[in-house]
């Protein structure tokens, strides 16, 4: 059983790298092409001072694209997984506090964002999804070396 895992792990790492990396690049890209909306989404969390929220709105998508690209290419996987995982945890905390405070917002994770109707919020779904990504990041942190990676 353990040797089966040892055999499979490099492929698992590749799969999870491509999965998590792909999601990060896609999510980053969708936000990067609509920077105003991205800034709006961050402001809607009512967590940061407005100028800092705007800064994150513009910068975060590119950060995601960078981390995602590194994961896909298999370069600096351990640190990218760490950064990706920490980002996901921050997202989970942000969404959870919005939920707890009774805000009605879209997470803005794949573009969009801002205020929505209270009966359209999908907080649990968004948190569970990001938790799944956190687990993927944890796996990559533990097993960073896999097939077709540039890390040696």
């Amino acid at each position, binding site marked *: 059983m353990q040797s089966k895992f040892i055999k499979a792990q490099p492929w698992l790492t590749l799969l999870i790298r491509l999965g998590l990396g792909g999601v990060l690049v896609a999510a980053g890209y969708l936000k990067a092409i609509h920077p*105003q909306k991205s800034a*709006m989404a961050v402001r809607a969390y009512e967590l940061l001072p407005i100028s800092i929220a705007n800064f994150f709105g*513009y*910068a975060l998508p*590119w950060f995601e694209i960078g981390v995602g690209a590194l994961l896909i*290419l298999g370069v600096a996987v351990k640190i990218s997984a760490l950064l990706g995982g920490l980002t996901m945890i921050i997202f989970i905390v942000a969404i959870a506090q919005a939920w707890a405070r009774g805000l009605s917002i879209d997470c803005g994770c794949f573009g969009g964002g801002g205020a929505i109707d209270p009966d359209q919020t999908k907080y649990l779904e968004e948190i569970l999804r990001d938790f799944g990504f956190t687990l993927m990041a944890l796996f990559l942190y533990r097993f960073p070396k896999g097939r077709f990676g*540039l890390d040696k």
Partner: protein
Amino acid sequence: MSINNNSDKGTRNLVIGMVAFIVLVGAIFSFISNKSSSTAKVPAAVSASDGYGIVLNANATPKIDIFIDYQCPICKNFEIINGGYISEIAANAKAKVVIHPMTFIGAESILAANAAACAADEGKFLDINIALFQNQSGTENSGLWTGDYMKRLGNSIGLKSKSFEKCVTDGTYVDWTKNVAKASADANVNSTPTVKINGKEIDRNTEYMDPVKFKAALAAAGVK
């Protein structure tokens, strides 16, 4: 063996460097293209101190700020429900009305906002405001709104001057739309429509889409 290791390390560092470079360039570009421009040409009716919005009745009180995006479907509904009343109080100088055309939905929002600003220069802002909402395409960023479309739309409300057409073709006020966007971002406007009276937002859940409650909210703030 060690030569291989070095060239692998070299490749790896090169890739990291390239990714970092692309990310940095992208981020810097994103920041720069969303900056306000202090040299942007602004329509005569626009006031920088009013968030670069288009101002009607500069000296009246109270002040009503309306943030919209011309492609936003809910803004169209808001215009249908309350547009007549807003036009009436603007025409009778019962309040200072400041319209902020935001452009976050897409490029066609910028075209529309530019056209609205061009129309403001010719005294037909409220007319084009209504015309734009009445001619929303039904899906955002559908490609319906082009420069030519804006000229025809202007035509249909009596804007036939060469200056209007040039203003639309040249995109004279496109830079101004960035100033509006930045000011709206700084004012923490996160969805459209957003209505503020004397700086305070009215109740989104009850007072926006109910014409009676909307009028009451304005009356409570001093609109006679």
